[in-house]
């Protein structure tokens, strides 16, 4: 066998990234080891998170040393994470599709780069800025106007009902801030794809007498569907892992599941940040180990969502090809 330095070095570099990812997961899993033993399945299905008495003497439970009364259940945070990201996508999708189509179809070529850059700029705004805007502007707006209006118009739906629409902090605020952060991600991916649609396809559709709406919806959108799903997956990745902005507007729920769209929630990422300080004061380290275990849960969720979306796209493509 011939030694090929160029090829080998490329291979090593290419393997470094998955290796780093694997190492992070592996070390988290090893570090969280005792937490798996102590928590068991109650970790996923429990709704009570209690660090226990950090100022008392630790006790030994199931062979590991933990603070008295410690109980780690993360269902509240899993549900908060999935719900806030899902609603954010629901809000962001129509906005970003409309934005991309507008930029691709309606804006004169001269202005397009400027407007596209403005949309991209939204994507680079640090999340803490969105959080601050959320606290100062969005939360009072939801409390005074959006919440009561939603409750009045959509109150017949179970998740929108509720005479009291709360304080503004909560699931709706978190989802709206997330939606704003991910809209440019989906919009710019989609815009690039729309601009790649061959001119012939558009013009052929127009020549067949299609209206502008039909050209976009029937000749262009089907060609960019895969890219659109790719953009949504990217956006979901950002939404699931977003920390600071969510922490600032979500209302920081603990031990309580959201009962409507105005309820306070916590997401996994924001909860890890909020608990880290106190967890570090646990002399048995079980709190930190349990936080490592939640981090693994977040990783699995992100992976599952991504894989699911990919399977869905290839599935759609296969079905269409079979036709």
């Amino acid at each position, binding site marked *: 066998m011939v030694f090929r330095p160029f090829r080998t070095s490329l291979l090593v570099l290419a393997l470094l990234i998955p290796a780093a990812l694997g190492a992070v997961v592996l070390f988290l899993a090893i570090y969280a080891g005792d937490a798996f033993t102590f928590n068991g399945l109650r970790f996923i299905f429990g709704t009570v998170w209690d660090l226990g008495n950090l100022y008392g003497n630790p006790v030994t439970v199931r062979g590991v040393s933990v603070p008295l009364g410690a109980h780690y259940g993360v269902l509240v945070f899993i549900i908060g994470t999935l719900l806030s990201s899902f609603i954010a996508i629901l809000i962001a999708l129509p906005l970003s599709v409309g934005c991309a189509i507008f930029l691709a179809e309606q804006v004169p070529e001269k202005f397009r780069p400027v407007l596209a850059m403005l949309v991209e700029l939204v994507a680079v705004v640090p999340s803490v800025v969105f959080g601050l805007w959320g606290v100062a502007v969005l939360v009072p707006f939801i409390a005074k106007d959006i919440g009561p209006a939603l409750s009045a118009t959509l109150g017949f739906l179970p998740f929108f009902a509720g005479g009291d629409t709360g304080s503004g902090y909560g699931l709706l605020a978190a989802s709206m801030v997330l939606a704003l952060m991910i809209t440019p991600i989906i919009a710019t991916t989609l815009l690039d794809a729309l601009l790649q649609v061959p001119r012939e396809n558009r013009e052929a559709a127009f020549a067949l007498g299609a209206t502008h709406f039909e050209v976009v919806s029937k000749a262009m959108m089907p060609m960019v569907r895969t890219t659109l799903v790719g953009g949504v997956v990217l956006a979901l990745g950002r939404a699931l892992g977003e920390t600071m902005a969510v922490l600032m507007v979500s209302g920081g729920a603990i031990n309580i599941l959201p009962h409507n769209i105005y309820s306070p929630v916590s997401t996994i990422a924001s909860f890890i940040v909020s*608990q880290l300080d*106190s967890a*570090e*004061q646990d002399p048995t380290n079980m709190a930190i180990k349990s936080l490592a275990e939640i981090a693994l849960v977040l990783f699995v969720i992100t992976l599952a969502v991504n894989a699911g979306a990919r399977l869905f796209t290839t599935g759609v493509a296969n079905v269409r090809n079979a036709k």
Partner: protein
Amino acid sequence: MHFKKKLSRSNLLRGGVAALALAAATSMATIARADTVTLVETGSSLLYPLFNIWVPAFTTAHPGIQLTTTSTGSGAGIAESIKGLVQIGASDAYLSDGMVAKNPNMLSIPLAISAQSINYNLPGLDGHHLKLSGPVLAGIYSGSITKWNDPKIQAMNPGVALPDHVIIPIHRVDGSGDTFIFSQYLDKSTPSWHNSVGYGTSISWPAVQGGLGANGNPGMVSAASQNPYSIAYIGVSFKSEIAKAGLGTAELKNASGDFVMLTHKTVSAAAAARVGKTPKDERISLVFAKGAEAYPIINYEYAIINTSQPDAGTAKAVRTFLTWALTTGNEYKYVSQVNFLPLPPAVVSLSKAQIARVQ
């Protein structure tokens, strides 16, 4: 179009590189002054305003020592000081027995006395101070008292027109010394709270429909001011922000059964009751002290210090700063700016004995 986009990106990149280079050059210049010792402080957001007042005065008196302060949280102050990332960790809570057993080198040294107010956003009360007790607050925060006109609240406040409205209890989501002393007040005054929730810098808040979490003392103030009918616990160094937000302050029931307002006099009375009991390692709760005048939620603000510093120069600088903080820094003109109280002389000498152990 694509070309233009690339161009603007590379401009951005170049700008970023230039900024980085500038930052690097500045920090190099700082390091280059080899004769100065740099100390870093991090931790409690309640102590942060006081450190900001202390630093200019201290560095003028001791030009050889540079002190950097950051506001993170009591938990971070403790953790980073133990890891040796900072020389001074600031915390509203003392180290637990477990932490001391695990890290015998770590000292909890009081620097000043702080207090906490219970604030509420109740429209139509016209500056009247509500009277509240530990068991009532425990009821509000555990969901057994849900409305402002609850008989238990009304009984303490005869003649006050309390609204028939749901209470919104606000708690801290981050690890916090304020949560520590607030939950200690509930723990010591209410057996059912003691048996179920207990105290700590982060506690397992009972599920209360409509309850809210806020981040940091600034977050507590803004959440309370934005939510009519809410209640919150806020550190006394945020007194002017509380006043600006128009929040009411409650009179609290103390261990002797009297309702007291948060003033210098009541905080001093509470401190006086507990100072004599302060042990050598100074890890003691000042919450719920006995005495008719004693305000129930006060605490020592701690510096969390490692006895073995990396070198003699650093150790000397740490001792110099802490000694200065306990003498000149404890003068009323400094601590009163953040509504803290100076340490009583007996505690100062205990603290000085601990400082001598830093080598």
